[in-house]
């Protein structure tokens, strides 16, 4: 089975503010406010370059953000499901 391809709204549709290690995000299309903990904001940043699979997102994040996991793609896939449930990413 092919890996799911995820997409997110472009960065200009989001307002983000850092507060104490958390990212407060205002999602303009829905008008909803979200609290995000790492690596969720970094995943959204990685998706700004276009749709990607969990493995591709892990590669894009690369050295800029180190994920403490033996299987970064699996860790990112778990966060992607949460972001999908929150309406911030979707599968294409």
């Amino acid at each position, binding site marked *: 089975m092919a890996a799911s391809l995820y997409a997110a709204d472009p960065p200009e549709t989001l*307002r983000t*503010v850092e*507060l*104490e290690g958390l990212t*407060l995000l*205002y999602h*303009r299309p829905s*008008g909803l*406010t979200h*609290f995000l903990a790492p690596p969720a904001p970094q995943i959204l940043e990685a998706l700004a370059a276009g749709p990607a699979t969990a493995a591709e997102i892990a590669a894009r994040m690369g050295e800029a953000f180190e994920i403490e996991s033996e299987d970064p793609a699996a860790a990112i896939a778990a966060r992607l499901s949460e972001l999908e449930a929150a309406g911030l990413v979707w599968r294409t």
Partner: protein
Amino acid sequence: MRHILRLQVGPVSFRIGSQWRGPVEQLRRLYAGYPEPEGLCDFTVRLEAERFWRRWLRPSVAIRGDYVLPDAAPLPLAQGLLAAEMGMNLQMALGQKRFLLLHAASVEKGGRALLMTGHSGAGKSTLGALLGERGWRFMGDEFALLDLDDGRLHPFPRAVSLKNESLGLFDGMDPARLGPVLTGTPKGTIRHLRPNPEAVARMTEPARPVLILFPRFGRDLEPAIREVGAAEAFMRLTQASTNYVALGERGFDALTRFVGALPSRAIDYADTGQAEALVDELWRAA
């Protein structure tokens, strides 16, 4: 409407109409000395009979106006003053778009404001009213109005709604400033207190907020101060705001700036003396 009162409270104006004389007369007495608005009013509140015959027969007051809650229960005419107050709150909560509305009390000293917010029963009204009689300027006990552009707090010094046990704390007050005792209301026994002349005279003067306080009252609580992080303060204030969602991005920007710039503290107290001491301590450090 047969009986009408026009009322300016801080930057907001109300037109309150009633089919009965009583509630408007009580409001007029309670708000003696408040300015009359110039021009059209921002909000209209109407106190009407639920059904036309209920104007005379066991009169019951339905709260209507620009904004209504369809399932709001009517109140007996004896609680008409409370109905008018609830009507003004409702218009603000549902219709105010010029400010971020925080369900909070606020007081000012030296041009700097202290905001106190918390659940019902946390004591913010009582504390705000007490501080307002002890060297602070009372700005409001129900809603604090956060300016969306410059982050200042605007006063909204409506009559203080004293509830149940807190009534006794204001026994020595000038009786002319107190409304009738309303018993058996949905919130227990209530008595309104007109803010003092300074609060009324300075109702158009905003102040720069410098401290956010989350008071918690409990007879068994030990006095305590706890730091509240900006993210937690943000979350609690979105819950304390009636129009955060409606304001969209402007509300997000105003509130993130607000909590990012100010320290937040939670205090526990078992009596008002303790609360005042904790507020003094935090204010000296702010």
